[in-house]
């Protein structure tokens, strides 16, 4: 048990150095509104800026100020970071990083261009995306596709240290942006479609030594939870090793539960929050214990964890989709906010899960406060039982109930989820959440699949189509009241909204579209105020910053990811009962591959 030894050593190191607070540099950088210093804007993941030079009155005059081609034509997720005079931009595989000087309209200060084995490309299910870098303590952290976590010197771009986080020959890769908390950098892992056993790992930022690793499945000692202390629905979990007993045999070892989403942090509570993904395979019949779904939660897949960043120990857990039957990959971000619940301000976290429910939880204890559908089409469950926290699954849409080799039809949402990884925004001025969503349903047929290390381990055939009996489009941009669990307004889009949202003090909400438009709307009512077509579809996140007294908005274009796969040829299926589906045009008719950052500003 090499990993236990590491854990012990690391604990000793932490105790010796006595580090209690910060990362100071991240707190300082994110407190300055001129910066966009972390992928989600701040530790709370709010993607909100207090800049207001660009506002509802003048956003209509927005124009392109400068552009930067990344030189890579793949799906561009994440977005540029800005700290002071410098902008950091990353690319999909091969994961180049450029530091640009804003004082010289984006002149390249340094570049990092890693050489990686090409064999890693095919294990990056769907596309070779990367969600960006982290800047902290004079270093730039990059999680490369080939599982190398690298720390670069911020001044020179030189490699300070590297560490291997997982094994690509088993199907593991890295796509998520690392997050720096105190003296640790947190890294997840991708590869749920290859039977990778997921984990979140903390490395020391100074030397890359592993401090702790928390697995998503398996014994409590490796999941880093204490059943007598870790809370679930307000009470200690009680039962031991549910990460083993809720799986048939030792399937937990290839059980997925990867951690490729976003991580948020509450410095006051000193807790890190993240979501665990779907169990492997997609065929639920291969994950059932005694043919009884009640015994088969497949813990801790699909679970929100709140962990202590120093030790990794779990303070509380909440499993959103026990025994997944639809690939509702539970990795979406947990946005921290203080909002009124029944008249009292509570410290909450809000999660828009792939499964179509918007959850509001007390982030101190994990108590479930609100769970409502954020797309009215969601049909696989009637509701979430607030006493048990469990979704009430509808038999007709249960791919387990209907069985292996049976095509379960008309399930909403599709495996893409009502929302995928594209992060939402919280606007403290309106008290609302702004959510990029998908409006797509599916047929799902599970079948038996054999596990072979490093090979896809999927076991289901899916076909997807726009939500029936609706506006015919495949996306909506919505404003959500997380106190009550209600949609405040919803703006339809022809394609899934696959870009991260931004809100600003200027009364605006921004998002990108798959055709490539940057869109600005009034945060109050969703009325569109600006639209500009960038060179390629947008699956990156919209960010804003101020330099030289001027506010800018920046976004990466470059269509791809799951969206590019499913939509390039257009979605369709048997058209009966689906209205205008046949009229749907393929995304390929609107946009092509690209890799460009566009920076917008007001006329001089």
């Amino acid at each position: 048990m090499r990993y236990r030894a590491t854990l012990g050593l690391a604990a000793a190191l932490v105790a010796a150095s006595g580090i209690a607070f910060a990362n100071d540099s991240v707190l300082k950088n994110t407190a300055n509104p001129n910066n966009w210093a972390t992928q989600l804007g701040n530790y709370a993941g709010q993607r909100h800026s207090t800049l207001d030079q660009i506002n509802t009155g003048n956003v209509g005059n927005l124009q392109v100020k400068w552009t930067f081609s990344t030189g890579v034509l793949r799906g561009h997720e994440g977005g540029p970071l800005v700290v002071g005079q410098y902008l950091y931009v990353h690319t999909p595989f091969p994961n180049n990083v450029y530091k640009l000087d804003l004082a010289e309209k984006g002149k390249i200060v340094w570049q990092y261009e890693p050489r990686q084995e090409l064999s890693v490309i095919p294990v990056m299910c769907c596309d070779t995306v990367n969600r960006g870098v982290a800047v902290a303590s004079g270093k730039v952290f990059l999680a490369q596709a080939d599982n190398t976590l690298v720390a670069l010197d911020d001044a020179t771009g030189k490699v300070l240290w590297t560490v291997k986080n997982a094994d690509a020959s088993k199907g593991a890769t890295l796509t998520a942006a690392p997050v720096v908390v105190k003296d640790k950098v947190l890294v997840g892992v991708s590869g749920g479609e290859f039977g990778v056993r997921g984990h979140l790992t903390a490395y020391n930022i100074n030397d890359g030594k592993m401090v702790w690793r928390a697995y998503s499945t398996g014994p409590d000692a490796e999941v880093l939870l204490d059943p007598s202390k870790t809370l679930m629905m307000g009470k200690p979990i009680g039962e031991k090793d549910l990460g083993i007993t809720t799986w048939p045999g030792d399937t937990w070892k290839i059980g997925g539960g990867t951690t490729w989403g976003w991580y948020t942090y509450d410095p006051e509570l000193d807790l890190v929050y993240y979501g665990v993904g779907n169990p492997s395979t997609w065929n639920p019949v291969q994950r059932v214990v005694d043919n009884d779904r009640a015994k088969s939660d497949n813990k801790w897949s699909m679970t929100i964890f709140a962990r202590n960043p120093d030790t990794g120990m779990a303070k509380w857990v909440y499993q959103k989709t026990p025994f997944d039957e639809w690939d509702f990959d539970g990795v979406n971000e947990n946005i921290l906010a203080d909002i009124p619940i029944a008249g009292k301000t509570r410290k909450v976290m809000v999660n828009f899960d792939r499964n179509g429910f918007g959850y509001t939880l007390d982030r101190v204890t994990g108590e479930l406060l609100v769970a409502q559908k954020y797309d009215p089409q969601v049909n696989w469950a009637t509701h979430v039982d607030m006493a048990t926290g469990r979704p009430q699954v509808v038999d007709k849409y249960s791919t387990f109930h209907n069985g292996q080799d049976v095509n379960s039809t008309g399930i909403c949402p599709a495996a893409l989820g009502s929302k995928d990884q594209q992060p939402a925004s919280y606007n403290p001025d309106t008290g609302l959440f702004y959510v990029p969503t998908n409006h797509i349903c599916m047929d799902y047929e599970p079948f038996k699949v054999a596990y072979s290390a490093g090979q896809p381990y999927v076991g289901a055939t899916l076909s997807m189509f726009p939500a029936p009996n609706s506006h015919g489009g495949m996306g909506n941009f919505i404003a959500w009241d997380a106190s009550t669990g209600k949609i405040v307004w919803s703006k339809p889009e022809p394609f899934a909204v696959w870009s991260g949202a931004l809100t600003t003090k200027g009364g605006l909400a921004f998002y990108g579209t798959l055709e490539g438009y940057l869109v600005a709307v009034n945060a109050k009512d969703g009325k569109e105020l600006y639209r500009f077509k960038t060179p390629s579809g947008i699956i990156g996140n919209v960010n804003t910053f101020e330099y030289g007294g001027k506010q800018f908005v920046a976004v990466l274009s470059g269509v791809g990811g799951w969206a590019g796969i499913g939509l390039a040829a257009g979605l369709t299926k048997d058209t009966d009962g689906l209205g205008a589906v046949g009229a749907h045009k393929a995304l390929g008719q609107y946009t092509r591959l690209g890799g460009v950052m566009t920076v917008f500003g007001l006329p001089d």
Partner: protein
Amino acid sequence: MEMPTRSAARAAACVVAVLALTASGLVLADQPKAPNDPTQPIDPWDNPYAMVDGKIDFGTYNGFRRYHASCHVCHGPAGLGSSFAPNLLDPIRERLDYQAFQETVINGRQVEGATGDRVMPPFGLDPNVVEYVPDIWGYLKARADGVLDRGRPDHLAKGALKGRE
């Protein structure tokens, strides 16, 4: 919202598909269509698929499932291509025979390019693919020939026809 089987509707859809393909000039005259003969054994070389009353043989249906489990993430739905990997129906119409198809699937392929490297993984060690290469070929061939539309095909029972199933 059950989806009833509709061979008539499907047959009509096939006709439309064939017409559309012909109109866009994608069906090449020199590439013969598969015999589609239910009286003969299903075989990747001589008779890769067969359709009876709008229902495809079970092996080819399995090819549809295997394709959408192992290939769809890169090659897009129904062989149509995606932002990541090419359409497979055009090369099958134009030049790929079963031999070349099989070799590519088993051994994979790597192409280094200035704008992004293209990698087709080797499936030689993947039990979910290796055993079903003839099925996947049958499916893509039936798609390329315009015999199958997009979406989940209606199919005959397992063992209804002679041959590989």
